[in-house]
């Protein structure tokens, strides 16, 4: 039976995703453009007493509150943006160290600093590598309202299955745009359980060690778990890539614009396709490398200064392919603009 159609915003979809993923607690602090996630959750909690929330004194407390809840065994999350996302790095670092299933939905806004409130892709580095560690965090980038819903569920599942913190990136346009969607309900939910186990033999958790060797063992185990699972966690979409000689790499809403551009360019017989990372960390490097081998030019297009490009070029180092980086920090791209940029580059303008 097809699910019924809804006319909702991305922020509303994120709330529905969290509920359908089995989340019971949200901690948050108002910030544009993510505020409606907190408001939406509170509205749901008014109807459903099983859902709890706390509007905290700041995002630091929101993040650590989430960690407290998951230590007690319930699914919890927060939502934020820009400067709030920076403050959440404190708790994210602890989640990364202690392998706690933190889930965050970050609606990117322009930066640095307070920047703008609507759109950017400048929180990729922060989400993936913002802590004082090596970036063992799962980072997704949603490119549509329905995908945002699905990725929030995926984030809870992956966080509790693999015990790495998970962050879903969107942006203000995605959060506030209303679209008609039919939401794909999850087939499977990973169960939650108390991490402080309440057994006779107490659980002792620390994130501070006195010797390099003993901490080194912990990190080795974490990195080994990450490497073992990253190919399963990594997700991507390939669009019109069967015959593509030119590849666009883009994520989020920029990828949506790129798809429209590609559809038009294909009509003009240009053999161009899109690789869209759905997870930015870990990256679906197998799929990317396969495509890169068939192409000679890769356009990396993003609303940030080479944050995606660094990730892509690291994976493709050594391949005989020309990279063209198109970066417009904190500004969006229309399909027409992408067509123009690519056409003029290929003409040698």
């Amino acid at each position, binding site marked *: 039976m097809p699910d019924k159609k809804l006319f909702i915003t991305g922020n509303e979809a994120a709330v529905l995703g969290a509920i359908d993923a089995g989340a019971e607690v949200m901690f948050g602090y108002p910030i544009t453009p993510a505020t409606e996630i907190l408001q939406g959750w509170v509205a749901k909690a008014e109807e459903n007493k099983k859902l709890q929330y*706390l509007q905290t*004194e700041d995002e630091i407390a929101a993040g*650590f509150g*989430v960690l*407290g809840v998951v*230590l007690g065994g319930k699914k919890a999350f927060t939502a934020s943006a820009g400067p709030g996302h920076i403050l959440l790095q404190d*708790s994210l670092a602890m989640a990364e160290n202690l392998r706690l299933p933190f889930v965050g939905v970050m609606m990117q806004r322009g930066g640095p600093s307070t920047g703008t409130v609507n759109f950017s892709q400048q929180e990729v580095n922060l989400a993936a590598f913002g802590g004082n560690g090596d970036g063992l965090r799962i980072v997704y980038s949603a490119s549509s309202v329905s995908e945002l819903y699905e990725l929030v569920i995926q984030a809870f599942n992956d966080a509790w299955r693999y015990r790495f913190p998970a962050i879903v990136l969107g942006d203000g346009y995605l959060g506030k745009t209303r679209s008609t969607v039919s939401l794909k309900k999850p087939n499977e939910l990973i169960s939650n359980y108390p991490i*402080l186990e309440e057994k006779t033999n*107490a659980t002792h*958790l620390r994130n501070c060690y006195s010797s390099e060797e003993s901490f080194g063992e912990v990190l080795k185990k974490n990195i080994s778990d990450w490497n073992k699972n990253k190919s399963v966690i990594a997700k991507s979409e390939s669009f019109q890539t069967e015959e593509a000689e030119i590849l666009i790499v883009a994520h989020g809403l920029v990828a949506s614009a790129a798809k429209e551009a590609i559809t038009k360019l294909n009509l003009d017989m240009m053999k161009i396709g899109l690789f869209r990372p759905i997870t930015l960390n870990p990256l679906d490097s197998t799929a990317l490398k396969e495509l890169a081998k068939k192409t000679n030019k890769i356009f990396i297009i993003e609303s940030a200064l080479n944050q995606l490009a660094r990730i892509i070029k690291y994976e493709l180092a050594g391949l005989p392919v020309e990279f063209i980086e198109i970066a417009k920090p904190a500004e969006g791209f229309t399909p027409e603009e992408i067509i123009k940029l690519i056409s003029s580059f290929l003409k040698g303008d």
Partner: protein
Amino acid sequence: MDNFSPKSWNQESKPHLFCPGCGHAIALKQLGYAIDELGIQQKTTLGIDIGCSLLVWDFFNVDTVQTHHGRTTPVMVGYKIAKPERIALAYMGDGGGYAIGLQSLIHAAFRNNPITVILINNENYAMTGGQLSPTTETNVKTTTSPSGKDIKFGPGFKGPELLRQAANEKGFIARASVSNPIQLKNLLIKAIKNQTENNSFSFVEVLSICPINWKTDAQQSFARLKEMEKYYPIGEIK
């Protein structure tokens, strides 16, 4: 196990790693007795801060999580929301509670989150080698006030008196001292009961000694503690 160790202590982590003469050990012994007396070892979860408090991460045979500096309060607020039937204790120092984590502490008191916060006040950042903290009193020498703490950095910070202004009327707030272990234990018991019986916030500041950073011997340490007790009054504050 000797006859004096609290049953709730984790013997595998003893002898403990605090400096010789450290007041934390006195406070933790009374906390252990309080847990034993209330019979709550199996129902308690302990959150601990970084700094010297870190050394408590495996001190008790109770579920324990060590978090970042100043973040123990929000972690235990979150934990208690997930696990209202558990007893949530948050253990920290004066830097963690009154400087970097003060915002969360005030708001936990203000919201009346049913957790019990135990704050060891030894008037300095001890793990990092004795810098001045909010509670360092005027003219006291530390590594960051080598000529004595100037009044321009504020006098000794009175945390319980501040929290009293913000806390819900059902909150319990007290100050104890390691110079009087029995009173300390009784105040800890009263604080924990305020969580379990009144589902309310409670806070106990414990005046403590730090012989290593104070550069005092046993006698001088307790003499300085007596002076501290004149500035920081002991007893129930709310």
